[in-house]
């Protein structure tokens, strides 16, 4: 059990994160910027817990690859279990209870299901447990006391608020070792002094660091929203304390069958906690949302569409990712309504001041050629990161937008930082060669195109006038097919047929081949609203569409008094007509 247990744990954790939660791993990586520089280290080291944070962020950079992130997490949790096991066995030899030592890594595993629970929290717990192993359990009382007093301030500075766990565990250990040797009152005084010392360091720190005192006591960097009291994380701190107490209080089991029973029950309990925790706290919806974001970021449009095909997009953000994928694969005119559309918010989700939602929208802007808007959304998303970290993903995009806009000095700043990273340095080095060379940027497949597509004339961004803004992009450059498809889709989703027809007449020259299905449906609808038949229709609307709209109208009339939405969904649910008449969403 002692050999095979850690292996099982490691493999289970690895497989879970690799297969079930890979995009949570990417989520962590993209919201940090680990720099190989002394300044970066110093910036973290000057606050309690900062060194553990530095170590954690060093490890988190490897989350660039989800398999590497899964390995890191697995190794961390196995290390936690092994060190905790070592602590227990160094006190008393009760191997029957060792399965309970797995409760701690399992608790941390469950906490890690929340994408805002930071790797720094796990690293800090590990460091604290390692510090506990340094306690000389076989030494004299004086030596042990000295060890405690010397270790605690360093531990507080290295690992932060979790050093309280160290204090509590050592209090328990001291009680266990000395309860028969010294008077209870002396023991109590020792304990009180130890705990008082544990609280004194945060108090001292509060005189020169500007953080709320509760944060200095309980830890600053363990949860991404540093100001939010994520109380659940302290359950994980209570677990080793509880296990330690159980371990020390309860007997080892004299008979083999008793020991086996203890082990089996311990393992069963741990397993039950693991299964229940994973079942109830695995957030599949967020994993999907992060998957969308990752695939958009890596421009893997087919994977975006595959996600949408397996389960309908659950939010405007996911829908905007799908719509972008449709545009980039040239399928917007055909497949827009294969996915349930919610209006124009599915193209441009409303702006929210958080660190997640603006990023997908910034991607949409970037691909449209709205470079300044892409820059703004990216910058604001990064500024909204609750633990004040910078983002490698955002720095990369900001370097690009500034290169495109000719702001080479600013681009150089971002590239300089990215060259201090492990996984972005090469890209940044290549990008730096473009700085200052507008002609070379013009030849870049992405940046050159963005330069050609971006706005030329001064105006202010108008969230209420997106169709006008899209129209200007189309007028400026007929090669901007994404803008063309977005303009058409915007007007269709807004149910503004008049404007759609006008836009279509202006910008449909760039359509290659037959008119896409949805545009034919819209044109047909427009035509029949103003004419009796298709005799003089100026667009090439297929016979099939002409027939189908007639059938739709007839069916609508037939079922008008019952439930036409339900009755017509099967045959017409993917059509524009169904959207116009039956989809409830606010008009812009």
């Amino acid at each position, binding site marked *: 059990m002692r050999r095979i247990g850690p292996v099982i744990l490691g493999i289970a954790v690895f497989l879970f994160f690799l297969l079930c939660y890979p995009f949570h791993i990417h989520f962590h990586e993209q919201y940090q910027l680990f720099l190989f520089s002394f300044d970066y280290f110093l910036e973290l080291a000057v606050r309690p817990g900062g060194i553990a944070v530095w170590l954690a962020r060093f490890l988190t950079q490897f989350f660039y690859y989800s398999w590497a992130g899964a390995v890191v997490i697995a190794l961390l949790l196995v290390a936690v279990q092994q060190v905790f096991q070592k602590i227990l066995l160094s006190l008393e030899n009760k191997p029957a209870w060792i399965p309970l030592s797995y409760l701690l890594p399992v608790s941390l595993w469950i906490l890690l299901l929340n994408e805002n629970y930071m790797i720094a929290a796990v690293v800090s717990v590990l460091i604290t447990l390692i510090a506990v192993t340094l306690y000389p359990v076989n030494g004299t009382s004086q030596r042990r006391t000295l060890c405690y007093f010397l270790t605690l301030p360093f531990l507080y500075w290295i690992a932060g608020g979790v050093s309280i766990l160290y204090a509590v565990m050592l209090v328990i250990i001291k009680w266990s070792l000395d309860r028969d040797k010294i008077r209870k009152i002396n023991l109590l005084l020792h304990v009180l002094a130890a705990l008082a010392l544990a609280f004194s360091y945060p108090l001292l720190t509060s005189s020169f660091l*500007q953080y709320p005192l509760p944060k200095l006591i309980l830890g600053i960097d363990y949860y991404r929203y540093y100001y939010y009291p994520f109380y659940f994380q302290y359950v994980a701190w209570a677990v080793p304390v509880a296990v330690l107490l159980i371990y020390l209080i309860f007997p080892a089991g004299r008979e083999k069958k008793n020991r086996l029973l203890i082990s089996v029950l311990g393992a069963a309990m741990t397993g039950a906690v693991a299964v229940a925790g994973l079942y109830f706290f695995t957030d599949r919806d967020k994993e999907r949302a992060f998957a969308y974001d990752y695939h958009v970021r890596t421009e893997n449009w087919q994977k975006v569409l595959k996600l949408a095909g397996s389960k309908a997009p659950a939010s405007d953000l996911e829908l905007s990712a799908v719509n972008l994928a449709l545009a980039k694969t040239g399928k917007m005119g055909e497949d827009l309504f294969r996915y349930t559309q919610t209006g124009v918010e599915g193209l441009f989700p409303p702006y929210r001041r958080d660190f997640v939602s603006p990023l997908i929208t910034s991607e949409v802007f970037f691909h449209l050629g*709205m470079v300044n808007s892409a820059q703004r959304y990216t910058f604001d998303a990064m*500024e909204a990161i609750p633990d004040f970290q910078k983002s490698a993903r955002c720095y990369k995009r900001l370097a690009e937008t500034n290169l495109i806009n000719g*702001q080479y000095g600013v681009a150089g700043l971002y590239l300089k930082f990215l060259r201090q990273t492990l996984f972005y340095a090469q890209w940044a080095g290549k990008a730096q060669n473009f700085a200052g060379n507008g002609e070379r940027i013009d030849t870049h497949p992405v940046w050159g195109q963005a330069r050609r597509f*971006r706005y030329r004339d001064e105006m*202010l961004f108008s969230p209420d006038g997106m169709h006008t803004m899209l129209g200007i992009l189309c007028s400026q450059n007929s090669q901007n097919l994404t803008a063309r498809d977005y303009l058409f889709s915007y007007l269709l989703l807004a149910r503004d047929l008049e404007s759609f027809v006008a836009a279509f007449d202006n910008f449909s020259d760039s359509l290659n081949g037959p008119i896409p299905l949805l545009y034919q449906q819209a044109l047909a609808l427009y035509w029949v609203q103003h004419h009796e038949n298709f005799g003089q229709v100026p667009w090439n609307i297929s016979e099939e569409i002409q027939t189908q709209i007639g059938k739709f109208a007839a069916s609508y009339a037939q079922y008008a008094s019952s439930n036409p939405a339900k009755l017509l969904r099967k045959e017409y649910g993917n059509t524009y007509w169904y959207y116009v008449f039956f989809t409830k969403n606010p008009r812009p």
Partner: protein
Amino acid sequence: MRRCFTGFVVLLLALACKPSPENGTVSCGYPSVFPDYIGVTVPVNIAPLNFDVTERGADRVMAVVAGTNGDTLRCSSGDKTIRFSLKKWSALLKANSGDSLLITVSVRHNGKRIVFRPFPVYVSDDSIDYGIVFRHIAPGYEVYSKMGIYERELSSFRQKPVYENTLIPQTCVNCHSFRQASPDSFVLHVRGEKGGTILQQNGVLRYLQTKTDSTAGAFSYPCWHPSGKYIVFSINRTFQSFHVTREDRVEVFDRLADIVVYDVQHNKVLNCGLLTTEDHETYPVFSADGRMLYFCSAPAMNMPADYKKLRYNLCRISFNPQDGTFGTETETVIDAVALGKSIAMPVPSCDGRYIMFSIMDYGTFPINHREADLALLNMETMEWHIPQAINSNDVESYHSWSSNSRWVVFASRRRDGLFVHPYFAHVSSNGITGKPFMLPQRNPQQFYDRLIYSYNCPEFVSGPVRLDLRQLERKANTMDKEQVGYESI
């Protein structure tokens, strides 16, 4: 005559290319250094002007600073950064106060030594205040991350936080203002759910709720009355819009702007009808003698559609500090609208002789306008001009006068067009401005290359700012705010 002139020119050239005492190739040009300290005017008590030699290929740099008395200060470096000893630098400046220094830079390049033409640094005997207080904030759009108010001592490189928004989470701070640079009287706004206005005077900290039932919003841009009895504030409803072309990023405008005066002793707002009209009245400041209130005014417009037509004049109204009453009419001091310009942020010098203000093509927020410049209004002649010495091709904006009225600090984006840095310029008693210099740093290139924050609203301060942070934290967390009263005049 011609021969004399030619001889004179030859002599000048010979002097300009005078070789250093040691062997080396002499360059007739100035060295390329960052920051550009060539020909700047500095105060006698400024921190060392450490600089980086940015000449290509240089692998060892040396600098000799020579005073007119023959005293010198030498420095050499293997990493291109010239760092002067603080103690020796201070002594050298004191010995050359009112005079100038010559800095000779030489570099080693491919084994050869190149000596550049010495460049002057003029040492004014006008001292500068103890320090500046500013906000560090990323040059963003609508969202802020970590930010804070910091104090930097100008005779050294010491910098310390006054307030950081990690103390009271999810807050933003701005509009720090001192009474004639005194750290004993200052205000600071904290925005957010637990926000309020910090007013500290003579060691007493008050946390104010400044929104009243009779005013349109909480206090915004402040200015102390020289007596310390009043603070004038604007009340603004500010909105942002965003440019889509590469040249500009943000456009800030007000949907509402009024001015009120806060009576510090009686904790009440004094409202003058002439300053709370349908027009936008903003950026109020008291004159140095406290008898006049200057402000910017523009008619309300259909925003954001008419954003390019929004232009502000510089106006004023008299103020009676005895009873807190105002004059019966406002007066236009500079009709910027007639010139097709807009004025913002007027700031009178402490001696009352000048007002420095921002001028731009339109709008109300100069930091977002590349064309924004600083202008100087002479209060005796009522004539104004744009001093070319302190302006650049990029934005110059927020400015503050030192307590002796001989120095201004202002914010500029001239380095890269994005990040705002503080520059200092000497202003003589007759309004002549010297070449500005960037805030000195111990390792300037490394510092500014890595800095991801802008210096926002640099204000001179004559001593360290002491703010009881834990008291502030308690008041904010318990919402222990003092409600401001209201009185209409």
